[in-house]
């Protein structure tokens, strides 16, 4: 397994809520990445963003790891929740909040500010 894939895996496992996006938490470079981050914000969930744009290998390794071909990809407590369509739907029907509670207890409401972290080979 590549070093980059290890870093991606570690980020997924160690951060409570992770959003692999095009762009950053402050400036999405893609409409779907923005939709997914909006859905998380609509519940007051903070998250850690990872920008896949700096290196095409990030997206390749992520998709190899998850067998999910598109960006964004949202993880809660290490579990792939889905892309923008799924996260929006789950935010609207209450299931996203239930998943956050199930995986993270109450901590997701208090996990500090949004941030963007880098993964590098």
């Amino acid at each position, binding site marked *: 397994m590549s070093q980059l894939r290890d870093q991606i895996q570690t980020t997924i496992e160690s951060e409570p809520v992770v959003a692999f996006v095009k762009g950053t938490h402050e400036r999405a470079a893609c409409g779907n990445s923005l939709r997914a981050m909006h859905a998380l914000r609509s519940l007051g969930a903070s998250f850690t963003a990872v920008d896949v744009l700096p290196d095409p290998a990030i997206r390749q390794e992520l998709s190899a790891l998850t067998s999910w071909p598109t960006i964004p990809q949202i993880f809660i407590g290490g579990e792939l929740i889905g892309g923008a369509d*799924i996260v929006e739907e789950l935010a609207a029907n209450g299931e996203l909040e239930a998943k956050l509670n199930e995986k993270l207890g109450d901590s997701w409401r208090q996990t500090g500010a949004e941030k963007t972290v880098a993964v590098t080979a």
Partner: protein
Amino acid sequence: MSARLEHLLRGAFPDASEVSVVDRTGGGDHFHVTVVSPRFRELSLVDQHRLVYDALAAPLDDGSIHELRITTKGAT
């Protein structure tokens, strides 16, 4: 291109009560696909979307699809 996607989806979901492909921008690479099929019953949304991704693996891999929105429903 929309016709190709619809053909792939109809092949993968022969029992679908609805398959639609919308070219969102008219540019032939941003699509919104909707599939209503009893195969989705009892599956999580992640697994439902995985089945759609599997059906569209070729155009996803060769770059024909730049952006894909997916709506899935189990038939009622």
